[in-house]
């Protein structure tokens, strides 16, 4: 296997929407490493993703971040996050990865740190309903947007996917599973009848070191089936 190609493939497949969250004007193309420049030109999302990844490892980016929503309270930089339906104030600079604001400031630890580079999916949350890697999403990029974490996916931990995860006894160590469930949820919110290939394509950016992949697939199929049944039942009631 050609490793670089593999990484690129993952980047391409990942249905992230970080593209909307980065201000392109603040970057000089010359400073972007070659491998990012080598991303297919037509693949805007992947390019942007690579860019965010590069940017977080380069502190000079700090100054460039759009931070119109920020207000200073004494020495603290406070930001407001709309998370799981509630507005929360966090003490974090605009260029702080959303992941750490969620975990440390809000002490919601269900969202996990895995690689810090958008390569494993353990930190997946939803921003306006789309799955994003919270380690690659900056606090300053999500102002006014709706963030959903595993804690907010359902009121009682009974989202069809969560129930299916239990029914199929998916988790082993469980560390990646919040990210897996959030990634899967973004698929089923648009498509409750995915094929196996669609599931694989959607989930391939999420690593599971315990290798529970086949159970993840089964659980997604099960949840999708439940959602279809519920939806049919709902339509029947409505008529």
């Amino acid at each position, binding site marked *: *296997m050609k*490793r*670089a190609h*593999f*990484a690129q493939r993952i980047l391409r497949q990942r249905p992230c929407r970080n593209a909307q969250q980065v201000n392109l004007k603040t970057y000089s193309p010359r400073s972007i490493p070659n491998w990012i420049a080598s991303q297919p030109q037509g693949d805007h999302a992947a390019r942007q993703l690579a860019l965010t990844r590069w940017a977080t*490892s380069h*502190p000079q980016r700090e100054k460039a971040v759009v931070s119109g929503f920020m207000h200073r309270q004494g*020495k603290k930089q406070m930001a407001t996050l709309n998370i799981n339906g509630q507005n929360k104030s966090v003490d*974090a*600079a605009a260029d*702080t*990865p959303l992941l*750490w*604001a969620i*975990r*440390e*400031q809000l002490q*919601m*630890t*269900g*969202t*996990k*740190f*895995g*690689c*810090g*580079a958008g*390569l*494993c999916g*353990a930190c997946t949350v939803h921003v306006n309903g789309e799955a994003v890697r919270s380690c690659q999403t900056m606090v300053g990029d999500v102002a006014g947007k709706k963030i959903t*974490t*595993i*804690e907010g996916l359902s009121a009682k*931990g009974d989202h069809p996917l969560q129930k299916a*995860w*239990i029914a199929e*006894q*998916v*988790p*082993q*160590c*469980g*560390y*990646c*599973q*919040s990210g897996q*469930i959030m990634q899967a949820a973004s698929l089923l919110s648009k498509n409750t009848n995915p094929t196996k290939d669609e599931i*694989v*394509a959607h989930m*391939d950016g999420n*690593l*599971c*070191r*315990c*290798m*529970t*992949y*086949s159970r*993840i*697939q089964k659980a997604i199929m099960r949840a999708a089936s439940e959602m279809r049944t519920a939806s049919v039942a709902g339509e029947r009631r409505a008529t």
Partner: protein
Amino acid sequence: MNSHVKLSDVQSTDLSRRSFLVGTAAAGLALGYSAVPGIDTAFAATPANFDPSVWYSIAPDGIVTVTCGKADMGQHIASTMAQIVCEELGANWKDMRVQLASNDPKFNDPVLGAQITGGSWSTMMNFDAMSRAGAAGRIALTEAAAASMGVPPFYKDELVVRDSVVTHPKSKKSMTFAEIVKSGKATKTFTPDELKAIKLKTADQYTLIGVSVPQLDIPSKTNGTAKYGIDVMLPGMVHGAVVTPPVRYGATVKSVDDSEAKKVKGFVKAVILDDKTATTTGWVVAVADTYANAKRAAGALKIAYDGGPNAKLSSEQLFTEAKRLQGLHDSGQFFVKDGDTRAALGTAAKVVEAEYTTNINIHAPMEPMNATAEFKGDILHVYSGNQFATRSGAIAAGAAGIDPKFVVMHQMWLGGGFGRRLDADMMVPAVQAAKAVGKPVKVIYSRENDMTMDFSRPLTYQKVKAGLDADGRLIALDHDVVSAWPTERWGIPDFLSPSVDKKGPLDAFTVNGADFFYTVPNHNVRAIKNEMAHNATPSGQLRSVAPGWTFWAVESMIDEIAQASGKDPAQYRIELLDGKGANAGGAQRLRNTLLAAMGMAGYGTKQLPKGEGMGVACVSSQERATASWTACVAHVAVSPSGEVKVKKLTVATDVGTQVHPDNIRAQVEGAALWGMSLALFEKATLKDGGIEQTNFDTYTPLRMSQTPEVAISVIANGEKATGVGEPAVTVVAPAIGNAVFNAVGARVRSLPITAEAVKAAMKA
């Protein structure tokens, strides 16, 4: 290494010398072995003195909480321990809960004498003790219930215990466990002899063992509430990011310039580790108010290093050194020395010789290494998910410069273990940073720290020489294994084994598996320590440990021998598994799993398209004394460019007794896919003394799109329960290698199997 570390409390935990106590404690009923051997009954009668090693408790509401001394890294061992207790106790599974034990000799493994989780040992080594603990509780509860119900003691055999209720069918009286606990009458002491005399259930009486009950930890792992080490939050805590040197081991810090780091908001201090345990070298911790700020500060530190003695080493040099050592006649020690291989090879009609290698492999559990340390008075509290509390507590103490008895290890769920968390390096930065700043500190490795500072599976070089007689029978085998010695690094003599040539102890965790169950009259196995690799790449125990490489060599070689003698490789194995002498029993079980896998896969019955093939392998992982019996048929398709696609893995495994069938399947599937990942996708390399791969873009474990169908057959024949977490790892790589040969005639002898190597071998 670790000369400064003394293991405290590695005392005998022989439970056969201890009483079992059932007593009333503040929170209900506590049940466990006495802390001190030979405790007398007076203790149990006075609850104030009641301090057993609480293996489980029953609260006044009837909830049974089992304390698990094992690290739970996804193998659901806590749930399994609860299941074993629950079976004999007669509780309702809905009433069962688990908690994780802190470091305490009370929770030492009854067989191993230390708090350590590995080797796929937990179930087999704790089955009897947990069963007896459960049965003792049932007896105490039953007797108390009999007294309360007014049933004379000699009628107690008429009582039925089921689903947390004790019932006397004749009088139609019943009491729940909750009511019995509230009555305060369930107090009893079992002498060691009484405990031993308890008649445990036989397999036909089981109502819970063998049933796939819902795992107790799974709901918390679907809603974000399971707490891992990385999730620990303490009041007043600050955060540490590690800066590790470019050299894996042996570097020292010459100077640290923190002038830029000081400009980072929230920066507290840069702490240069002074690690007298020698677990780490040249590490610096940047401490700040948040982890994001600690990372910023870490990035702003300017550190000058002396690279040390290993700064120029590469994987190639480690292989060259291994070859040199193997070529020396007096290097290493013998692990197996049966018959006279030299004479037999001299008379052999045919000699087959080959060398097999494996590259460095990285554990890379999804939860990066982390630890949180807090000094409270004289006590050092460490929060971390760890597989070896006994040693890790001692390392933490060594890092703090205090006696290990002052260290409390708070066990957390492990976000993957795979052997990585047997090591204690993460304790050192947390403890020393906490000491330096006077606050609790949580240290989290970046993925880059985690990969480049892994206690990796060592690079291995093996030379195998086989002699065949005129009929193609295997009459002699010389097997040399050259590697770093991961377990010797622990500095615990008990984990080493005497060599058969009496040349001092050897690290059997580098050669286990090479003492297989095939009958070979003349058989040598030599364990050779690669000192250069040992120093440059401190190695660890990676899921399945030695059998992960020894069976790669053995099972590839058996195929090569079969090929040389013109026989079917599966049939050749069956003939070697004749069960003669010391191989009796084991060999037949292994043969049967091989036959089962062959049958399931349709081995030899299917016409495969061009470029496809099937390969077999069978293994007795982990150690010979603790073997499970596992066989695999790999079905692969090989493209003309050498790309290997695994179409299906068929695995049969004989586990003796299955406690939880569904979990066994999950573990075997995960292990088999690990084996495939190691066989095809995972490779780390050393260059200029450092590991080159830093994240999942360059170190690339198997993903969903690469996952083949895995068919599993679990054989439970009523023998003792064996381990399932690791053995299937070891069988897959040789099965794939053999399948590649079967498909296209290309023999690859190095892991991972690359398209380039396959293509090169196709031409040859």
